[in-house]
């Protein structure tokens, strides 16, 4: 999918978990990504992150290390 679309989708997930109480937001984002994103989508995200991850929420960058 287009990088813009992927960034939007990932940031939407981050926005939700950011609003939740607790301190484990990036873990919960990572868990959500592992549970619902097919491996090629996660791979695309990880490769995008390794290229700098422009536009991604900081929590997504953190979560990408955990998936």
């Amino acid at each position, binding site marked *: 999918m287009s990088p813009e679309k992927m960034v939007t989708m990932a940031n939407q997930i981050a926005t939700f978990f950011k609003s939740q109480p607790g301190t484990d937001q990036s873990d919960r984002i990572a868990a959500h990504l592992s549970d619902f994103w*097919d491996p090629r989508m996660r791979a695309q995200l990880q490769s995008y992150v390794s290229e700098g991850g422009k536009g991604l929420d900081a929590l997504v960058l953190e979560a990408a290390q955990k998936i």
Partner: protein
Amino acid sequence: MKDLIIPWDADRDFGTPAKEGKPVTLTIDGFEVTVPEGTSVMRAASEAGMQIPKLCATDSLEAFGSCRLCVVEIEGRRGTPASCTTPVAEGMVVHTQSQKVKKIRKGVMELYISDHPLDCLTCAANGDCELQDMAGMVGLRDVRYEAPQTGGLANHFEARNTSGEANAEWLPKDDSNPYFTYDPAKCIVCSRCVRACEEVQGTFALTIEGRGFGSRVSAGAANDSFLTSDCVSCGACVQACPTATLQEKSVIELGTPERSVVTTCAYCGVGCSFKAELNGDDLVRMVPYKHGKANRGHSCVKGRFAYGYATHSDRILNPMIRDSIDQPWKEVSWDEALSFAATKMRGLQETYGRRSIGVITSSRCTNEETYLVQKLARGVFGNNNTDTCARVCHSPTGYGLGQTFGTSAGTQDFDSVEHTDVVIVIGANPTDGHPVFASRLKKRLRAGAQLIVIDPRRIDLVKSAHIKAAHHLPLRPGTNVSVVTSLAHVIVTEGLMDEAFIRERCDWEEFQEYAEFVSDPRHSPEANEMLTGVPAEELRKAARLFATGGNGAIYYGLGVTEHSQGSTTVMGIANLAMLTGNIGRKGVGVNPLRGQNNVQGSCDMGSFPHELPGYRHVKLPEVREIFEKAWGVEIDPEPGLRIPNMLDAAVDGTFKGLYCQGEDILQSDPDTKHVAAGLAAMECVIVHDLFLNETANYAHVFLPGSTFLEKDGTFTNAERRINRVRKVMAPRNGYADWEVTQLLANAMGAGWHYTHPSQIMEEIAATTPGFANVTYDMLEERGSVQWPCNDSAPDGTPLMHVDGFVRGKGRFIVTEYVATDERTGPRFPLLLTTGRILSQYNVGAQTRRTANSVWHEEDVLEIHPHDAENRGLNDGDWVRLASRSGETTLRAKITDRVSPGVVYTTFHHPDTQANVITTDFSDWATNCPEYKVTAVQVAPSNGPSEWQEDYNAQAAQSRRILPAAE
């Protein structure tokens, strides 16, 4: 009492409705009978096995007491009371066949017959006429009322008298409705039709006009026909009519049916039970089944009448293949089509990898069929690339209710509405989308329950005959979360929550975090009034009513789920139910109104790419092990692609083959251009459907499907009710859909050997805990059962979360409002929201191929007079509707149902393709598309857009079929 019930006829009419109350014992014709207090003498006699003659009474309606045929004598009472309106009393002694009442009945019948044509042999109701039956039952042998020599006898049935003069009392037949006729000449003015329209359907379209001998049934106002009146063609009046006055045109044409099969409607998620009545394999009519637990004998225009698509000439009955989509279709044998498809799919996997192909299961097909399609992906393709149309409708329900309550399903049965005091309807339009449930809801509202409607449009429930919502919160599309959170704010800050329930049933610590969040003044209705457009005071009143008005139930639809924050709103709704203690008993609960007939079932059956049947994640080894043992294969532990992801991956070149059963993603899914690009990029698209649908324009293999009339199986409706679908006739295409899937699987080397869907249900029961005790034998015996049905709930589960939530403690989840990225601006200043209409269904593939199109032959754009005036638009003008995704043209309908700034349309017609407008934004958790909010502009137009012309040209090109080779 029970042993007196003679089970010789399940359709017996008891004359008046069943009552609940303490037992009362009386004697009827020497037999002692015990019935609940409030029961009529007529019903008591019927329960004792004795039918009292009757005409104006039927057990779907309250007694009316007009025909006087059911008179009886009661010892110690004067006169001859009507047994339908006389309640039983302890010790009462009733005589139903005394000389006196027999004489009265004959006299009554004689009068009726004196004003009725005696054309019984050629009458459409011959053999199915209660007037005929009653004349026989009372032993009427002569009619003494003869016309005197000097002139005719006043009557309603002769168009002209013997001198050729017109009879002013005669009215012509009204055949304006496509499905039934009204012949006033045959009417006995028993008022059953008028009462059915009021009591059962709740439309109040019919009335008795005039008085005395001039009394006539009339639809709408003086100049209305049935078609132009408010009549919604539900068929309740036709069902209630004891004569041929209101008669199905199909019966007039085909004759009275001689056999019937009980089955389940294949339209919406209400899942009505019907009797398919036939002669041989000629379907004469569909009649709502009075013992159907979802519909209780009622129906809507779709299930009752719109089945003609099954025999429509557009139906494709032979398999077809082609190498590329610019070629015409070639009709081939099943073997050739299946081996072509299997070779292609296997070849794609060899070239592009195991995960390069997938399936879309159908929410219109049976549980057994859906189960097989996902098994095909998991067990034969070796991946989890399976998804279903629930992706684009209720996937947020799955996620949201799973997170809060622990399971993805409505908590109640439909009967529950009879115990509700306050109803919230949010993002749903039941009178159009779920009409039979709407009738049951309206009945409860007329009995005094209060209603809160949260919807951008003024839907019919807000105000219609004898219904008025206490509060309508006309929110701006996209602000559901804000409104729901504000409702919770009022409940919490005003201390209206049910603390005892929360302490006992929910996680108290999470509740406190939630309460702190929701109490923040930024969530007050006043703070959000500008954003949501909902007057703060009205919202406060609505919140107070819901929290304090007694049993509160929430019903919601796709106006909740199809948003960027769909899942969050579902959680917000669950929060509201928990806050107010409205979970776990009759009359309360969270009730998603499911779109398609088997959306619930397709989700239950593991259609989603992340979970196996029974909502268990594929990552769990213990769950995979169950299926690995049952299927003898290894199951991929990684989640597969969801529908939008499949299309993205197709455009990227990593997803190449799709088997799509009974689903038309090109028309139904958002951002049509993107869907078309995805389909065009695939190398093998297999469409398995009744018709060459829009998706088939991009297909390489077409496998003809079977209708719900042509196969056995089960559907699961919105109340988790598993209902039997029974084969009424042989499949015209040669195979039931489960057989087609099996053939495809076997062509790919699966080695499946199912010979009947009951064997598939056995496999489902063996692998899925919620279905553990479900068998076809059980369904045969009980009619239906609501899951979970297993050793801990052997009778099924009408109400969920009764003693505790499925997940243990209910979870309150913080619901922060996040504005969608889809925003209005100078280029696209209006918000488009979409929905459906009563007479059409989803993409219209079925209903457009029936006479239902007389009510809705094209999609129109509803626009507020203010916005229309700004743009110089008149009612009926062609308008161009454009978003950043695309543009189309359709006709404008100017109405204040929508607020200024909001426009609305339906997506039933491919010529309009409303989804070329909708965008690729989706729910954050599930990718459920944001159909309900698109920024658009509307402008005058001369005709179809360039895109529409290109689309139609491509479709016409793609639908060519070469004749089969000799």
